[in-house]
């Protein structure tokens, strides 16, 4: 860049001035960092110090600044210069706080500091400040798939915020399961009786809202594009296919009740045995009058069997609990009791689960005479004119049975979440081999698709556990793996209507946010607001497809020439593609093979007789790097031989960095990334796993270089490893010393 003007700033505050030779650092930045402008300051983060930098930007035309002071995690408010490329040389947490203040340590500590100055200068010169791409699509219409209470709520809440909404419902009417409920679980005090299902009112509001366009008997035939510029083909039963431009999607496709015919031992399929949905139908038919069975007999006694086909340990049925069923059975028992207190209603449960104010609802049911027995049901048989329920009374500790005119099975929720993408991918792989059965399976799986996304990585959003489209993260329930597409309601997680309303409102919030940010070229969570985005030098691309396959967010498709086709607004800026690229043609403006590579090359490697090994640390910026910072805040010391570089994710680590480091004489490399596997911690899903997988390849390279495997060390680090991490670093440093210097120095 022609108009690049670089500056380095050396802070002398927080004892940096006394612990380090600042003059020497200035020299380093000038001579080796080749910075146009180098200044030192006693207290750089002070108003005065910040003003000095701002002045250089305004009047000296500084475009790139290396701030050599504290960690990039500290003093962010002070060192905030939006238009300028900034790198941070971590002299405080990275150097003096982890080194003893002794004469013998002084030399190595100074070397460490000088390296961090070199690295900061090298990095900033390789950066450009991203401006963001405002042309990634600015459509602000929300697509809601599913017209149940979740979908209708998402639509209305978005409309209330002033956004246009397209609502697609596959049946002929709005309302979903909630519309089939006689009444619903109370949502307000005193939580004593069932309340109106509220659907009629919701439908009226939708119909009255000019911002909401409803398609009934409609499904998504195709969803192409990206956040801010989705194009959806809506197949309408007996009608032409409509096309809509939308900016984001809320998938509220709900659930179906677990098929009770799979529960013959509990009477599933027998006369006089219904599931909860069946009971709702009977209650609606009775319309306030006495509830009658299918055969018309008035029900005088009813038994509710909780967890029917749920919380199953045999692997045959649902392993999970559907959360709402206890309250639902309580509600349904009240249908009987409120009508006629003399009807015997018994609820058989093993753990009664009525969280929050549900406890009041439970109490109210007891007060109305509903009997609750802690019992494990073994069989339901038809007997006489009704049913006989055999169960073990866990309190009285005896096998016993109850007779009833009607038995209600509390079966669980099965999400309508489309095909399992992994299964589909596998089937597709086999099918490509010409396997006919597999081809059938592919067709069958694809036919279950809800969204029909035109994504390289499959037609729907990935499933989490038990087929639910939930987020994997406790702190971030809406952290989706398909940008701007959010699941809401029972398709995300089993829940009752009240929770679904809350969930749908949250999902609408995230969808609106995604549209707003897509329009501004900003990234979505977790790098929210990041304006950088990956570009590929296609001239160099070998069409290996690794980037398209490995992108955790399905951001990259392939064009007709099989080149990667980046959909920026789908991208979450993790850099997994950059790490994947064997020919290194993918980079971000401010984070590239070069920004990190240059830092590695900038490190001064002492000759092999110096007894001073150099160890490169590539640390995940979300867990490992903060852990290092906090270790420093506690003044836990670690080896002066390490040089740490934060990376966006281990997934972004390109193997060239490792091989370059080892080639240029580094004696060891430590990778620090977060937990992977089933309970993975990586917020870029497979990032740390992929990074590690790729590293396993590097070991071959090491062999080729006749280097010991131990020269490369892969650590799983949690943000809380504040005490243990320095120890692990020191152990590794000791091991390296023991192993001896790398033969590649000074080549």
């Amino acid at each position, binding site marked *: 860049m022609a108009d690049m003007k670089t500056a380095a700033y050396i802070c002398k505050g927080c004892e940096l001035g006394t612990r380090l030779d600042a003059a020497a650092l200035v020299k380093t930045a000038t001579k080796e960092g080749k910075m146009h402008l180098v200044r030192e300051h006693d207290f750089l983060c002070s108003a005065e110090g910040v003003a000095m930098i701002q002045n250089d930007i305004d009047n000296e035309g500084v475009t790139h600044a290396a701030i050599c002071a504290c960690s990039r995690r500290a003093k962010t408010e002070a060192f905030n210069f939006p238009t300028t490329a900034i790198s941070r040389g971590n002299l405080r947490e990275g150097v003096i706080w982890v080194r003893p203040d002794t004469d013998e340590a002084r030399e190595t500590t100074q070397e460490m500091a000088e390296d961090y100055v070199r690295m900061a200068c090298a990095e900033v010169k390789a950066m450009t400040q991203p401006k963001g791409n405002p042309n990634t699509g600015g459509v602000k219409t929300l697509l809601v798939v599913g017209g149940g209470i979740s979908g209708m709520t998402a639509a209305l809440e978005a409309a209330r915020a002033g956004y246009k909404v397209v609502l697609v419902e596959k049946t002929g009417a709005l309302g979903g399961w909630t519309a089939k409920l006689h009444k619903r679980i109370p949502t307000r*005090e005193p939580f004593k009786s069932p309340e109106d299902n509220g659907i009629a009112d919701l439908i009226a509001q939708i119909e009255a809202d000019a911002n909401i366009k409803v398609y009934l008997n409609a499904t998504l035939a195709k969803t192409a594009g990206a956040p801010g510029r989705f194009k959806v083909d809506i197949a309408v039963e007996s009608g032409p296919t409509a096309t809509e431009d939308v900016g984001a999607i809320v998938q509220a496709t709900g659930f179906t009740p677990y098929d009770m015919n799979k529960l013959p031992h509990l009477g599933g399929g027998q006369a006089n045995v219904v599931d909860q949905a069946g009971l709702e139908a009977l209650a609606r038919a009775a319309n306030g009058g006495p509830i009658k069975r299918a055969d018309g007999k008035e029900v005088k006694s009813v038994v509710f069997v909780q967890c029917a086909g749920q919380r199953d340990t045999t692997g045959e049925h649902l392993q999970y609990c559907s959360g709402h069923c206890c309250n639902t059975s309580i509600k349904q028992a009240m249908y009987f009791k409120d009508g006629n207190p003399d009807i015997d209603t018994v609820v058989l449960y093993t753990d009664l689960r009525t969280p929050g104010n549900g406890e009041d609802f439970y109490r109210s049911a007891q007060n109305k005479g509903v009997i609750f027995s802690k019992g494990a049901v073994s069989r339901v048989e038809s007997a006489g004119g009704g049913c006989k329920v055999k169960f073990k009374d866990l309190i009285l*500790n005896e096998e016993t049975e109850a007779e009833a005119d009607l038995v209600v099975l509390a079966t669980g929720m099965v999400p309508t979440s489309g095909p399992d993408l992994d299964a589909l991918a596998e089937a597709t792989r086999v099918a490509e081999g010409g396997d006919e059965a597999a081809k059938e399976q592919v067709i069958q799986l694809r036919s279950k698709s809800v969204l029909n996304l035109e994504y390289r990585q499959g037609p729907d959003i990935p499933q989490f556990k038990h087929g639910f489209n939930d987020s994997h993260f406790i*702190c971030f329930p809406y952290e989706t793996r398909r940008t701007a597409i959010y699941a809401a309601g029972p398709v995300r997680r089993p829940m009752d209507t009240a929770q679904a309303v809350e969930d749908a409102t949250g999902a609408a919030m995230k969808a609106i946010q995604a549209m707003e940010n897509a329009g501004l070229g900003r990234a979505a969570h977790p790098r929210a607001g990041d304006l950088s985005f990956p570009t590929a030098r296609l001239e160099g691309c070998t069409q290996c497809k690794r980037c398209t396959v490995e992108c955790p967010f399905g951001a990259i498709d392939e064009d007709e020439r099989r080149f990667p086709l980046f959909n920026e607004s789908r991208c979450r800026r993790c850099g997994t593609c950059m790490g994947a690229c064997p020919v290194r043609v993918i980079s971000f403006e401010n984070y590239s093979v070069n920004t990190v590579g240059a830092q590695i090359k900038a490190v001064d490697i002492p000759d092999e007789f110096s007894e001073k090994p150099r160890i490169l640390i590539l640390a995940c910026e979300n867990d490992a790097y903060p852990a290092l910072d906090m270790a420093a805040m506690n003044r836990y010391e670690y080896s002066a031989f390490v040089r740490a570089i934060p990376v966006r994710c281990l997934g972004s680590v390109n193997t060239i960095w490792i091989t370059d480091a080892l080639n240029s004489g580094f004696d060891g490399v430590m990778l620090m990334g977060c937990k992977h596997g089933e309970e993975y911690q990586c917020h870029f899903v497979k990032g740390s796993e992929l990074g590690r997988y790729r590293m396993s390849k590097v070991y071959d390279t090491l062999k080729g270089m006749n280097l010991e495997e131990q020269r490369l060390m892969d650590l799983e680090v949690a943000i*809380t490893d504040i005490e243990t991490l320095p120890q692990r670093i020191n152990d590794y440093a000791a091991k390296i010393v023991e192993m001896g210097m790398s033969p590649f120095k000074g080549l």
Partner: protein
Amino acid sequence: MTSVVATNQTILVVGGGIAGMTAALEAAETGKNVVLVEKNPYLGGRTAQLYRYFPKMCHPTCGLEINLRRLKANPRIQVYTLAEVTGIEGRKGDYTVNVRLTPRYVNDNCTACGECGKAVEAEVSDAFNYNLGKVKVAYLPHAMAYPQRYVLDPSIVGTPDAERAKAACKYGAVDLDQKEETVSLRAGAIVWATGWQPYDAEKITPYRYGEFPNVITNVEFERLADPHGPTGGKILRPSDGREAKNIAFIQCAGSRDENHLRHCSRFCCMGSLKQTHYVQEAYGDEGKSTIYYIDIRAIDRFEDFYAKVKANPNVSFVKSKVARISQDKDGNPVCWGVDTEGYKRYATTHDLVVLAVGMEPSVKGVDIPAEVMADSSGFIMADPQNAGIFGAGCATNALDVNRAVQSATAAALRAIQVVNKVARAEG
């Protein structure tokens, strides 16, 4: 004098726990201006005081790091710590709010270098660790405290320590002249995310909390298990510092009880199941956990987690609400009761008893504007009058972290609806 830039299109978020931070961030990342006030000197609330989350056993500070990074990167959020709302006037779309700012005695110059902490001598009990330990009167509340600035305990004022702290700071960050002040700001909508407090275990008299040192609460146990807690992560008994290997967890300590909290606090069953992992982690097969429960409420997919714990031979379950706790001559707590599944009496001695105390809304008893409706348990209810003040997180219900964040995300949209309307009206 502090001045806050805010208009009737600003969203005020009260409470800087995970719910409040979420509401503030979601709104700001949608382009709204937000003022976030927190009464503690740091953000993060109670989640910052947890060691691990169920069911993933991951670390809350990981999510906190992400949220703090989002916050640092977002110029639309103004944060005020040591700040409490004292009054709200006006109506939906046009509120005037009074916020009381208590002095931190440390200004923005602070670099968190820690010299003041080294200089002072006096100590006060460590609120962040539920007073299980002590901190210097000049302290950083915890390793990830944001703002990353030290705090001087008010007790320091006028003592030699105050002068020591002032002298130790090279950057003029120690400012003993700071006075309490009340600022008034405008807002179009308000999100009330004041969170929860653990039910006062001393009120559950049969369990003798406060009298028997080896009877502690679930929130305190989190600090014991945390490597950055008062025991460095070792599970030791308060009475004699001995390793506590045989631990009782008593469910519904205060919850589901008309003498205490009528509601079920939802998180405590999972919390105790999680804490049995801490015991396993610390002592392997020597660590024994016993959970005394009425119903195990491991709702929806958390059932998987319950199943895993049930499979652990070192964890036993007794379906019984413990009737009372006594203490033997060695200071061991003894749990008395009856296993209701088949009626078996027990009087079991443990090293330590952990009371799974329930959630009480923090708003309870606190003076919040009449417009905010609370139910009889003190939880904020959705307001039928559709005012501009919205509850979020555990201020609205007994929720786990995941659901609290959901609720806060929803609250952000409700607030945005109000300010967008204001914006449209004002063109």
